[in-house]
């Protein structure tokens, strides 16, 4: 079990339910290691600031996390954590290794923000 305030998903079914239920989902799949903790900390801060995004953690070593470890966007990753972003049920972005608050924010802005059509 991960010692973080970010809600932990324990099964692949829980993840599938979350991405089905919510438009914007970010999941940090890691351990309690030095490259993972800063990502969880950024997510804890962002939970208040980004109500339109649901933030989750998932234990990298759980067999259930194969849904992230084996995702096409995570192929070739060789650094923890694997952090993935879903928009309307589809994985739209994935990063490997440590990310800081600014880097996560930039990805949220680019991939999980509201898209306003140009003619409005």
């Amino acid at each position, binding site marked *: 079990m991960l*010692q973080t305030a970010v809600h932990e998903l324990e099964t692949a079914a829980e993840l599938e339910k979350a991405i089905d239920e919510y438009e914007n989902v970010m999941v940090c799949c890691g351990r309690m290691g*030095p490259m993972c903790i800063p990502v969880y*900390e950024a997510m804890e801060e962002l939970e208040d600031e980004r109500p339109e995004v649901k933030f989750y953690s998932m234990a990298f070593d759980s067999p259930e996390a194969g849904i992230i470890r084996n995702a096409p966007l995570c192929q070739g*990753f*060789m*650094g923890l954590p694997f952090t993935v972003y879903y928009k309307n049920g589809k994985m739209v972005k994935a990063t490997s290794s440590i990310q800081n608050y600014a880097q996560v924010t930039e990805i949220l802005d680019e991939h999980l923000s509201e898209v306003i059509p140009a003619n409005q």
Partner: protein
Amino acid sequence: MDEIYDVMILGAGAAGLAAGIYSSRAKLNTLILNEGAIGGQMVLTNEIANYPGVETTNGFVVANTMKKQAKDFGCKIKSNLKIIDYNLDGSVKNVKLEDGREFNAYSVILAPGGRPRSLNIPGENDFKGTGISYCATCDGEFFTDKELIVVGGGNSALEEAVSLTKYATKVTIVHQFDRFQAFEHAIQEAKSNPKINFIMESELRGFHGNGKLNQVSIEHLPSEKRNEMKVDGVFIFAGYLPNTESLHGHIQLNDRNEIVVDADMKTNIPGVFAAGDCIAKRYRQVTTAVAEGTIAALSAAEFLRSN
């Protein structure tokens, strides 16, 4: 005028949190402003085995315990913000944030910490997480039966090189000097490991690959001769840099951009103190940072009593 704090601490690593605990417990109105993650480099430490009086633990647990202690004593902590200007002279010190907010205090403790030094060579950002790593404990197993390079010549580099031989078939340590800066026991352990090779007086000049790192350029410094080397991964342990760029012109720094302090953690400006990995010192440990934060807080309290 906005609220004026007694003590404003810039940074929430080991030094900043220790200062916050001592300052707020002394009933001083204390604010910590923090630009990064709470705990600073402490949370980048997977295992802390030599903190006196504490069984082996990890940096995350220590950082969160210190944060809770500080808050329980009344310390306010604001995180993930960006300081864009300082006014440290005068009886009331002021900092301005990127979002327009300003904070004032009668004394300031600078504890912005440090960060791992990157190599700043072509390809480093492209292959982070796909061949380049800064944490052997985290990522070592991804390189099982692979060939690795470790960059650096200090304790971290040599100790992590040894730990990586659990996974890798071959580890090559690349170091810029002709001798190591690590403690002798770490050097001997690395030299006696049959999986470890050494390339001395050399630096990496570039990372290459197609979506995944597979080759590096290495320059032999005395001869300036470059070679290409096939490799599956590179672990970088090239020391630390103080986070003092934004303090240039505001406080006295030495030629390594470290804040100059005396034994009481006083800087060149009255009422401004500094502690932790940002100051000029030799040893950078959680224990030394905590001690300096403590001294800085006690010095700030004394300054407030006498001014």
